[in-house]
């Protein structure tokens, strides 16, 4: 757990929401005294970010331990709902439905800027019908257009196609159309119910090292005020790493679909962990996510 003055070991791999970070701590604080030796040791800490595995979690994760190159996306980084791991800004995450919506369509045309979330001219027939069946989902109810988005994403995921390019840029809409045209009626190799959220699987690691867990909650109300507004600019379409960074900036005002503590598996992991769980309020002076949009200069 403790290391000498040689510094922290280089992490071999980075997961979406878990990272073993090394924090320098004075020996005096640890109750130790080694005269003539280094005064700094490193304490291993595990930080878990519990979110919807969208870019909100991705950004908080990144700034919790600095931006590092990510390894290959693994099963553990997949969202139980949206399934497609993306790599951007040095982190691997799973974009939410809204994240995906933003990147497969011109930004200005996709989002209802008055409401601050969901699509423009959205309808809610599917959601109403679900309620009529008494099958209202426990996750956030999507609009009709986002249901279509989800179907496209599911087909892409079922075919094993990546949602992002090699350098973090998202796929172009034409690729999405090709994937959506595929027949996805064959059985899925792994049912969604078998996926274990990373936050829960990391519980044992936390208890050993005494780290902390951060729950970003719904970050919609903490979003950025500087969204690109030009229709011609497709976020994340660049061929280099700058594309990934643009994508992150562009998706800032969008928020995410649902939030970690609202998911029963995440909440269960947060209840059971031995780590300190820090929640981040989604409320900004009783205003909704639409407020930053309206007040933007």
């Amino acid at each position, binding site marked *: 757990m403790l290391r000498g003055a040689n510094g922290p070991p280089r992490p071999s791999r980075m997961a979406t929401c878990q990272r073993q970070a090394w924090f320098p701590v004075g020996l005096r604080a640890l109750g130790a005294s080694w005269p003539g030796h280094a005064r700094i040791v490193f304490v291993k800490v595990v930080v878990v970010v519990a979110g919807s595995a969208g870019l909100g979690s991705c950004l908080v994760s990144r700034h919790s331990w600095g931006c590092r190159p990510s390894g290959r996306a693994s099963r553990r980084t997949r969202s139980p709902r949206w399934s497609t791991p993306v790599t951007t800004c040095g982190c691997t995450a799973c974009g939410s439905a809204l994240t995906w919506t933003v990147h497969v369509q011109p930004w200005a045309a996709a989002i209802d800027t008055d409401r601050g979330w969901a699509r423009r001219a959205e309808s809610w027939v599917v959601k109403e019908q679900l309620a009529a069946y008494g099958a209202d989902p426990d996750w956030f109810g999507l609009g009709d257009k986002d249901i279509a988005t989800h179907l496209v994403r599911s087909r892409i995921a079922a075919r094993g196609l990546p949602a992002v390019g090699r350098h973090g840029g998202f796929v172009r809409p034409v690729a999405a159309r090709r994937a959506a045209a595929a027949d996805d009626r064959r059985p899925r190799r792994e049912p969604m119910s078998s996926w274990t959220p990373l936050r829960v699987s990391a519980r044992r690691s936390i208890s050993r090292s005494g780290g902390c867990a951060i729950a970003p909650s719904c970050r919609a109300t*903490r*979003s950025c005020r500087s969204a690109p507004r030009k229709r011609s600019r497709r976020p994340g379409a660049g061929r280099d790493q700058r594309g990934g960074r643009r994508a992150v900036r562009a998706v800032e005002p969008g928020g995410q679909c649902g939030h970690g503590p609202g998911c029963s598996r995440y909440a269960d992991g947060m209840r059971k962990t031995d780590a300190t769980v*820090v929640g981040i*309020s989604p409320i900004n002076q009783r205003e*909704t996510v639409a407020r930053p949009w309206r007040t933007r200069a």
Partner: protein
Amino acid sequence: MADACLTAIGVETSAQAVGRYYGSRRCSDDGVIDAWLVHTGETADVPNVAVRAVPLLMTDVDATAEMARAALEMAGLQA
């Protein structure tokens, strides 16, 4: 989006109401948080939960990093 989600589950749109909805892990088996970061200017009284007000708007990289740093400090870590 937050107010839409909260209205649907019958929770007031305030930092305090959301914090109490999550609940303290110390006094309830259903609680999920130990500490609660609220936006500057907000107040929240959540039983058995440490509350701290810091800027939560992720307006740029520095602001986001500062928010994450505050969260780590709430957990007793120095980032």
